[in-house]
């Protein structure tokens, strides 16, 4: 026991490794007048860390999340993911980064309505193309089983309940074993029972798979149970807890 603690202490500063870091990020909306919505955003997320971002509506937390998820490229400053600079990459390279390293869960599930639940989960895996279609399908079923929606696999996405859809969306985010999962109020549209289920799924992910999580929320209960809370107001980070 003692030796193990010692071992932890021996690790150099900076370990466990930094997955995501934002360096001096600024964002302006220029329409209709120039407004600075993000000011000097500077923070990082470590491997396996469960971080939540809190703040009032309009404080810029969603805007920040879209920048961090590489979907919004109109910003100043630098974004690093797994020791690689993401800022300035082409659209195609960003798609590849999103595909392989970032899982995203939206407030509204955003599943493709024409496809079955299983296909929805499989598509990012097939796009990545590192595994054979059979292996992707096996992994997809595994994720669905883990999230307890395996019995819905052949249904169309539109036939599921809200909680089930959100779990499928999480399974989809997990299919390529991303380094980090980002969520924009993933429980905001769910009742408390489903919300707590989703939370415990996230918790398990960070503990068991070592996946980092960065979740935007304004549910204080949800935030209080995470490893770290980043609080934002008027486009700035006002506290790390």
């Amino acid at each position: 026991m003692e030796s193990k603690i010692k071992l932890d202490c021996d690790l150099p500063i900076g370990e466990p490794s930094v997955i995501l870091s934002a360096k001096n990020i600024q964002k302006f909306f220029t329409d209709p007048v120039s407004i600075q919505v993000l000011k000097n955003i500077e923070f990082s997320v470590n491997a396996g860390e469960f971080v939540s971002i809190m703040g009032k509506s309009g404080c810029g937390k969603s805007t920040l999340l879209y920048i961090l998820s590489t979907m919004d490229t109109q910003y100043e400053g630098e974004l690093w993911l797994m020791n690689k600079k993401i800022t300035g990459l082409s659209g195609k390279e960003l798609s590849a980064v999103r595909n392989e390293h970032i899982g995203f869960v939206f407030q509204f599930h955003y599943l493709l309505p024409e496809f079955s639940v299983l296909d929805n989960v499989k598509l990012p895996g097939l796009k990545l193309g590192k595994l054979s279609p059979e292996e992707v399908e096996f992994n997809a079923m595994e994720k669905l089983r883990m999230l307890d929606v395996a019995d819905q696999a052949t249904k169309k996405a539109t036939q599921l309940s809200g909680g089930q859809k959100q779990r499928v969306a999480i399974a989809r985010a997990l299919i390529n074993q991303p380094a980090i999962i980002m969520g924009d109020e993933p429980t905001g549209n769910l009742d408390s029972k489903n919300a707590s289920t989703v939370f415990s799924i996230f918790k398990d992910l960070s503990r068991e798979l070592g996946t980092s999580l960065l979740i935007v929320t304004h549910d204080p209960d949800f935030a209080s149970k995470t490893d770290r809370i980043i609080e934002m107001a008027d486009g700035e980070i006002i506290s790390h807890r």
Partner: protein
Amino acid sequence: MNRNVRFAIAKTHLLARKKQSAIAALGVTFGIGTFIILVSFMTGLNGLLDGLILNRTPHIRIYNEVKASENQPIDLHPQYKGGKNMVTSIKPKQELAGIRNAKALMSVVAKDSRVKGVTPQVSARIFYQSGNILLNGNAIGIDVLEEDRLFDFHQYIVGGSPSDLANNDNGIILGAGVAQKFSLHVGDKIQIMSSTGQTYKLKLVGLYQSGLADIDKIQSYVNIKTAQRIAGESGSYFTDISVKLFDIEQSYDLSKEIERSHGINAVDIKTANAQFETGTSVRNLITYAVSITLLIVAGFGIYNILNMVIYEKMNDIAILKATGFSGGDVKRIFIYQALMIGIVGGLLGLLLGLTMSYVISISPFETEALPTVKTFPVNFNGLYYVIGSVFAIVTTFFAGYLPARKASLIDPVDIIRGQ
């Protein structure tokens, strides 16, 4: 690998909205189908009308025209040179009605490499006789088999056949109008009288119908020898020589050459049928205008439908991009869909065009002018089907490409934030 994924997504999109996909494909089908039907039908009709003149009329007609001499004696007299000479009531030259040295002329013209064939005619004035009644008429002696080979003579024959005339020296193919007046049928005998008063009994071997009632009441066809006998002339007497060329465009040049080198009248088909030339070019213009309009209308229809299909899928585009599909993937997914619609719709369009063209081509079409044509003429030209398929694919490609490119450039955030 990636292509299979994109293809599968495109297929799922199309099959998930079968009705919409079917409507989009039907837009292509009707565009291509109507294009093929109209072009085939219109060019078929044009071909028929052109053939009426082009196939039946000699490209060059050589004949002897009765006219006054261009060089009057007074013009040659040195005393009146330079003055203005006025002579009234000039009489035409006294000349043979036949072409001089016609056989030699024919063999010279026939040797020209531009000439497909040459055949002579003998025109003789006659009277059709039935009891006391005499009807004015005109018997034309022809080499029936050559006439048929070069000028589709059989197209005018409503009873009997050209070969019946070739086999019977005393046969006649009678104008349908005359036959009607005298209540004659194929196999009956008719008496005719030459301008010199001699009578001949001829066997009616066929009926001739040109579609022009005035001609059908007067004109009949006999063998050359019969016509020469009726005219009271020798075996070297010919009134007209018909020339058919391989290329109709050369008819004017050749007619002028013949006039110059043989000192005879030769008229080409375009000079003789100037109004026909105008008609043909106007009809062709209409055909081009209609087919281009049809293709443009069809093209915009296809573009509209695909535009709608893609804009309805904006949400899906955002999701695909958020989960790692690139702009290029999105673009290709929608181009695949457009092309699938184009190929399926286009193939059905070709089939529709072919079917409808066939139905038109077996629909009855009777006209006085064309006794042998029983159904509508349709031009089954493979080229129109090639144009149709190329157009279907090119149009759907661009109709899909333009909105797909726009979709591929959109930031997914703009769509998600807009919700």
